């Protein structure tokens, strides 16, 4: 795994990624690639991305997050974005951001529960 400081944890068969740092261009690609490689390595059917630590999500970061979810889906993994703050949700929608089928949950626990249901182990 490369040298970017975004930890990828394992909760049961689900991957849990907590983003706390700024996702700059140079980090974003490595971030996506590490998540996808880890999905393959573990055969993880579920992915939770926690952004409760982010107080700003611009269109670039939003794009990276949505793309990551779509990449995971192409591989056959359900992705859930959790913990988006009120001001971040308001800002993104005001900017005209379209969610395009992104799954969301209030927090990590709810996200894991949602995945449990989706993957038929609720």
């Amino acid at each position, binding site marked *: 795994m490369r040298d970017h400081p975004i930890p990828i944890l394992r909760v049961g068969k689900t991957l849990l990624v907590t983003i706390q740092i*700024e996702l*700059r*261009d*140079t980090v974003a690609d490595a971030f996506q690639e590490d998540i996808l490689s880890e999905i393959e390595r573990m055969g993880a059917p579920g992915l939770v991305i926690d952004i409760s630590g982010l*107080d*700003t*999500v*611009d*269109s*670039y970061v*939003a*794009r990276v997050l949505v793309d990551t979810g779509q990449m995971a889906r192409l591989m056959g993994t359900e992705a859930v974005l959790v913990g988006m*703050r*009120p*001001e*971040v949700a*308001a*800002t993104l929608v*005001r*900017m*005209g*951001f379209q969610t395009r089928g992104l799954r969301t949950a209030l927090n990590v626990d709810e996200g894991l529960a949602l995945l449990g249901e989706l993957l038929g182990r609720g």
Partner: protein
Amino acid sequence: MSRSVSQHALPIRAEDDVVLVRRKVRELADRLGFSSFAAAAITTATSELARNAWVHGGGGDAIVEEVERLGQRGIRVTFTDEGPGIADLSRAMEGGFSTVRSLGLGLSGSRRLVDEMELDTAPGQGTRVVIVKWKRL
């Protein structure tokens, strides 16, 4: 007219500078007591426009100002670059148009997040964008 109370000039010469400009704006919003929503709005617009100056303009400068008008406090941020300028401005402002792998929401989205936005650009003449967000009373 609005009066400038304080002023910080910051270069945008590397991708990390985008983050520094955004932080400066966030600090100022917090210090002025902006709501979390207003702070996210001006910080996000700053992030979009600083990134544009970097990605499209090849780098430039940002000036972050605390401003005052009729007793109301606000934040003004000015972005300038000497890049190629924007040829088709109305199209760029429409939203959903992008010349790079991106959502094309930077310009149109920023305008929706701030109280005032001014754009000066011409092909070959660089780009200058000024945004202002006032603190709600």
